[in-house]
């Protein structure tokens, strides 16, 4: 079973306890009424959908209940790291250098 490290529980826990919640670091526009239809569409629906590293939201819904962010490789399904919501996307080169 895939284990996911929850940064709030500080523990690697079964994937069953978690729910995926889409791409991370997508800030809601401060003033939506100033946006064009195309910009609003992009905010709502257009995602990067990369083949490889993806910063994404997860929720520890059957555990501590918190949303957090993860860097996951969409090809290998490997989690490089997880980090609390609100923190910037970690620098991958530093992560890899640390390994």
């Amino acid at each position: 079973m895939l284990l996911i490290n929850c940064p709030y529980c500080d523990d690697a826990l079964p994937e069953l306890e978690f729910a995926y919640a889409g791409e991370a670091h997508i800030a809601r526009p401060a003033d939506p009424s100033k946006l064009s239809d195309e910009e609003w569409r992009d905010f709502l629906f257009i995602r990067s959908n990369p083949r490889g590293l993806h910063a994404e939201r997860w929720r520890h819904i059957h555990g501590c209940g918190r949303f957090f962010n993860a860097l996951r490789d969409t090809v290998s399904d490997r989690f490089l790291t997880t980090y609390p919501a609100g923190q910037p996307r970690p620098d991958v080169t530093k992560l890899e250098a640390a390994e």
Partner: protein
Amino acid sequence: MNAPVKSFANVSIAVLPPVARLNLRIAPANLAAASAAFGLPLPTKIGQGVVKNGHAAWCLGPDEWLLHAPEAEQAAIVADFAKARTKAPHSLTVISDREFTIAITGPRAQEFLTVACPLDLSRMAPGTAKRTLFDSAQVVLIRDADDAFRIEVWRSFFPHVSELLDIALREFACGL
């Protein structure tokens, strides 16, 4: 609700008598006020539990605690927390009737729970508690000792969890 105890030599299952059960949400900065109101130092690490004078508390999330106390003290606890509210805003929800508690005890209790619990229970220390899943039902799993667990399950999921435990117990009893 007190179902008869079901057991074989290595595992026993019992539905425990009612208890005052409360869910507390409070900013960690205000935790001292809640600890004073409940009469024990609330644990700060997720999973940790503290038991004192018949009261018990387990930290389930960064700002969430599960509290247990004798049923007769429920009203007094709610009143004590209400007094603390002006200084330490919080939410205290009585969930006594929302859940049943099932005790699973015996030398093979840990192995028994693996029939439907995805956690690595060998890493779960006595005195800790975790919200997790039992089969598809969300539960709070409390470990009281190496050979003693409690499952707190919402009453709507109780028949499902209870039936699963009964089936597993029969399987264990006949050596499967």
